[in-house]
């Protein structure tokens, strides 16, 4: 094939330009390495930009009793003890520094009366912990990283999609990508590669996620031999919009409940009092989402199948100051003035806790030279993520994966990519454009979403999961024969082909994980195994792609050392126990 291919060489190649990818690139570039970062969108528009409520860090600015122990405690408990405790510990200890670093780089957080960074309450956080900027924290975070990155010598490749990772013997060697604007190919050879491509919420129809969230990097790394873990753990956020139809699934930030919003069913009952009398609306997301789901199923749902969320009692001035984005979003999209009226919400797919299995300190995957951080990686969030813990995750582990990749690259020679593999991949990528007939990627995406909604949604059971797996395997077969009409120029239909293939692979892994885990825990709710199994449940289901397909095996979760385990024995959060002792 005579193609005009661009060839590049880097010490560190970061695939993904969300918070995790930018933070990783900053670390590697500040260490003096030749670094590049790739993203499917324009710079600063990655999924991270949408984050609203805040970034969790035990700064103790509002509640001085807060500290890393309590943040660690909250994270492990919400993750139902299948998180990697080492990640949870590093995360709790390092988040405050990462937030302050953003301030030093120019982020302007909301302030306390004393002039410190303001922190708001959020579900299942013992203390007021989320540093925020109104309800647009993700934008502040990504903009600050973007602005910092611009001061460094990093090559940024915008609107480019990686389709395959290459290896040189056992280690990773780089990737091939196509430019979205004109379909040209670029081949990147790199000593170390960081995957920071985010989650795969787009496998579901009702989701808060952007089109980018198709799990590309996790799928590419899986195909290259890296392991996945906890794939069954997919988070429903309790409060997505229900209406109008085009807005279904768009997020209503947890900040609404954090700032005092209350949930009611159609009979005016504050139903969370039933499901979690202590924490009510501010219970963990799995519990609140299930609460709404159960109310709807019992016939106490709102007109569009959800619950009422009401924050009117806080007054218009307060709401407009604390939640300006939500006020505007509901007003312009759904004609609802949330300062005057309650509004409908229902669970929406929001976050993928599972992903690439990584080493806690460095983000190293099981493939030498290949690192991962952010939503595409597993480990920190276990069976249920705490709100605000993702923005801190991407900062803490983005930095660590950047450092891990840098250390690896410093001691490595430039690998070689096999030219024949490049040719073969280009042919594969161009094939859908050459087909005169074939499956329609938009249709297959819809079918995929339908299978996921029907078989591995909020409520699961064995027979339905098995049936879903069967359908998914049939669908995967069909995804090999998609056709894209039009040219290589900015062609969303063509781009969709690869999105669908990646999501199909990961969706199968979700189904397989859900089948393997014969219990209910966090986001995994199985009506045929309704209880959490104290002992045999404390495992992570790890998946590997072999020549015979996907293999699943349980791995016991790492055991906490004595001093950390002791934190859970007092029956109360460490910060509360300490303050009780002092009194």
């Amino acid at each position: 094939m005579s193609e005009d291919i661009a060839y590049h060489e880097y010490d560190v190649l970061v695939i993904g330009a969300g918070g995790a990818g930018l933070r990783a690139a900053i670390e590697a570039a500040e260490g003096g390495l030749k670094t590049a970062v790739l993203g499917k969108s324009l710079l600063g528009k990655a999924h991270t930009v949408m984050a609203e409520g805040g970034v969790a860090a035990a700064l103790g600015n509002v509640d001085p009793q807060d500290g890393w122990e309590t943040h660690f405690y909250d994270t492990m408990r919400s993750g139902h003890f299948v998180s990697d405790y080492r990640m949870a510990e590093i995360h709790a200890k390092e988040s405050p520094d990462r937030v302050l670093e953003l301030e030093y780089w120019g982020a302007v957080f909301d302030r306390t009366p004393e002039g410190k960074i303001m922190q708001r309450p959020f579900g299942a956080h013992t203390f007021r912990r989320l540093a925020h900027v109104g309800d647009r924290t993700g934008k502040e975070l990504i903009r600050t990283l973007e602005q910092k990155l611009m001061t460094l010598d990093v090559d940024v490749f915008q609107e480019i999609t990686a389709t395959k990772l290459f290896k040189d013997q056992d280690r990773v060697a780089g990737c091939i990508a196509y430019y979205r604007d004109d379909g040209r190919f670029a081949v990147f050879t790199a000593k170390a590669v960081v995957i920071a491509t985010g989650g795969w919420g787009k496998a579901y129809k009702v989701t808060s996620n952007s089109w980018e969230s198709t799990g590309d990097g996790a799928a590419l790394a899986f195909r290259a031999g890296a392991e996945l873990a906890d794939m069954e753990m997919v988070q429903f956020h309790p409060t997505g919009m229900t209406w109008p139809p085009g807005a279904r699934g768009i997020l209503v930030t947890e900040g609404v409940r954090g700032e005092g919003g209350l949930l009611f069913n159609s009979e005016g009952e504050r139903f969370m009092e039933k499901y979690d009398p202590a924490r009510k609306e501010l219970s963990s997301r799995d519990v609140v989402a299930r609460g709404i789901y159960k109310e709807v199923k019992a016939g106490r749902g709102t007109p569009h199948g959800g619950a009422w969320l009401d924050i009117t009692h806080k007054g218009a001035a307060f709401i407009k100051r604390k939640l300006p984005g939500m006020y505007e979003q509901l007003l312009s999209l759904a004609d609802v003035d949330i300062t005057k009226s309650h509004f409908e919400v229902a669970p929406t797919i929001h976050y993928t806790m599972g992903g690439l299995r990584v080493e806690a300190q460095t983000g190293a995957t099981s493939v030498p030279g290949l690192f991962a951080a952010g939503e595409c990686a597993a480990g920190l969030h276990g069976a249920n993520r705490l709100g605000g813990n993702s923005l801190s995750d991407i900062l803490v582990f983005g930095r660590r994966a950047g450092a891990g990749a840098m250390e690896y690259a410093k001691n490595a020679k430039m690998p070689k990519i096999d030219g024949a593999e490049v040719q073969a991949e280009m042919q594969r990528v161009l094939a859908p454009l050459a087909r005169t007939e074939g499956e329609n990627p938009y249709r297959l995406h819809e079918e995929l979403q339908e299978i996921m909604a029907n078989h591995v949604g909020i409520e699961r059971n064995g027979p339905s999961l098995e049936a879903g797996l069967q359908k998914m395997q049939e669908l995967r077969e069909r995804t090999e024969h998609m056709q894209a009409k039009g040219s290589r120029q900015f062609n969303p239909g063509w781009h969709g082909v690869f999105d669908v293939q990646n999501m199909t692979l990961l969706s199968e892994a979700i189904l397989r994980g859900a089948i393997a885990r014969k219990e209910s825990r966090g986001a995994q709710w199985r009506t045929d195994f309704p209880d959490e199994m104290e002992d045999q449940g404390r495992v992570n289901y790890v998946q590997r792609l072999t020549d015979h397909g996907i293999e699943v095996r349980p791995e016991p979760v790492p055991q906490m050392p004595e001093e950390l385990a002791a934190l859970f024995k007092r029956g109360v959060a460490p910060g509360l126990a300490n303050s009780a002792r002092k009194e």
Partner: protein
Amino acid sequence: MPDEITLSVYRGDKSGGQEVEFKVPMQTGMVVLDALHFIQAHDAPDLAVRWNCKAAHCGSCSAEINGSPKLLCKTRVDDYVGEVIHVRPMHSFPVIKDLVTDVSWNYEKLRQVPAFQPAIKAPFTLQQRDVDRIQEFRNCIECFLCQNICHVLRDHDAKDRYWGPRLMIRIAELEMHPLDTGDRLELLKGAAGVGMCNITKCCTVVCPQGIDITDNGIIPLKERVADVYWDPLGGLVRKLHK
């Protein structure tokens, strides 16, 4: 409400193009981006349009709807009952394909703005009232609709003499940060060309974030430049007090 709406969407690339009509079933509360997605899924799978958040947070989906610069995800179809909805790419940037334009010039200029230079290490002590204004500016979603409408860039294509309102806001947020020690006034007066703005306020009108670009950003910047360059003594005093 009608059952069906008509969109006339620009299809083309740098070699030229024209509007093409599509019929789309009407749904309650539909935004123009929903209609374009329907067209992609049913009629024109290769229709190029940028989007990410579908909630006016990311600034990807800028276009011109019946001649006005708008976000596709925030513009309701029922605002145009009885009309054909014409959707075209932003006028001031080169078309790549259909509704997608080449906005790289904005990123080049953003890279040229000297970054934040804090006087001290974090944590900072900053009062909310002292950061309200810069938070207003940092609410920018980089949709570049203001760059698109500003007549200096749109009608006079003076990109070599004026960096446009988005860049003025970026510079303003740095200049007005209480802890910043950088000095971008020479840049403002020179290459960035704040003097080219003649305060027509068109940028402020189209800003989907409601940022008061002209009154709160550009005019104070013009005053700072004037202070320093026309009143050396005043400029000196200002510098000492910064």
